[in-house]
């Protein structure tokens, strides 16, 4: 499928029964969605469950999809609702021990230069710890900004918060991460 073919058209094609369109759409979105969920819940089993449930809901609602809604926003909104439900059912945030466990489970890419491996690893670790230490709403806003490139207005629409609120969350998240990286 042409890389320039927009996600929204692919979604419409799939709603009409085109399975190749779904495969393309899935290939484009799977990593971004999975990382958003995993970095939100910090639990691979829960992330797997929510990831599958997100696609299940998208498939069930494919007939109601309107091209006016940006596909990525729509997909992340479904995932966001599931993440929020998950936190409502459990404690709001992962602890430090759980964060370390997740970090160990995640596959780290190979370093390009061995002499920088330790410092790169240390920076990544600090960023990861800083992310996991953020309150849920701040972390979610930060991950949405970094992972899928959503702007203030899109994050606000997706999460149901005002743009100023989203900007405030991002400001706090950015400050804490900057502080942690400067240690």
């Amino acid at each position, binding site marked *: 499928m042409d890389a320039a073919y927009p996600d929204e058209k692919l979604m419409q094609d*799939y709603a009409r029964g085109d399975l190749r369109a*779904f495969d393309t759409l899935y290939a484009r979105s799977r990593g971004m969605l999975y990382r958003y969920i995993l970095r939100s819940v910090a639990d691979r089993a829960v992330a797997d469950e929510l990831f599958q449930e997100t696609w299940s809901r998208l498939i069930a609602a494919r007939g109601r999809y309107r091209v006016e809604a940006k596909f990525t926003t729509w997909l992340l909104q479904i995932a966001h609702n599931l993440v929020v439900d998950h936190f409502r059912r459990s404690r709001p945030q992962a602890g430090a021990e759980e964060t370390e466990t997740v970090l160990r489970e*995640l596959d780290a890419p190979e370093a390009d230069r061995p002499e920088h491996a330790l410092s790169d690893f240390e920076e990544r670790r600090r*960023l*990861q710890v800083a992310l996991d230490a953020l309150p849920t709403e701040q972390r979610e806003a930060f991950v949405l900004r970094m992972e899928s490139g959503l702007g203030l207005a899109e994050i606000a629409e997706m999460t149901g918060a005002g743009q100023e609120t989203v900007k405030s969350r*991002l400001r706090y998240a950015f400050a804490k991460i*900057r502080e942690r990286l400067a240690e």
Partner: protein
Amino acid sequence: MNSNNPQFEREFEAFLSGDDARLDALYRNLPQPEPNARLDAAVQAMARRAVAATKSTTHTPTRKRWLPMLSAAAVVTLAAGIAFRIGPQLWQRPTRQPEAQSAAVPVAPPPAAPQQAEPAPVAQRAAAADAAGAVAPALRAPAAELKKVENAASRPAPRAFPAPARTMQEAAPPPPAAEAKPAMPAPAMAAPTRAKPVETESAGAPAAALAAPTMQDRNASLYPEHWLANIRQMLRDNQREEALRSLAEFRKRYPDYHLPDDLRNLR
């Protein structure tokens, strides 16, 4: 917080606009976890099942749309089959009568002057030798017969037969009034117009004389085979005159009918 730090504000604005290359690179170097192959397969299987289910449900209405059409076609075919089997018996009478009437139309007098054409004696009409002479009263008969029926209905005197229903089959064949008249003396019937005999009958004609035309009506409304069976019954009942009159009427009404041997030479 750092909200009053100009350095922080510049970095934050760069972050919001996607220009913070260092943070972006660091984030991209974080582990990039992805769903495993089992999860991919599960999601793609869900997508395929959903499409397959949609296709099967969209086919069902198509089949449902065809069902009423197939049912209607089956009903029409069945009805046509029944009509083909039974139809000839039902249509035998109506198809023969129009033939007789259409043959009579060219010689029929205008309906406006029925009484001027009437003066021919009833006895002569009963002879039915002349086809043209017989057709004219035959065409005029329904009005007179209808009048008779109306009079009979309003008459309190008992009748041998009830007034026949005015169905299409019964009303259409014009049983000639001549058949009712032979019961009366010829001289008394020569002069009056068509309306007069009705008055005569309603004034006190014998019940048998009233019954005769009713019997004729009944025979005329029957299928030919049943009519002939009634004629045979009359012969068996020693009502030879009635049988002959009925046979003569039958011959007029069905000139092309091939009579059975026992009736063909009956005179």
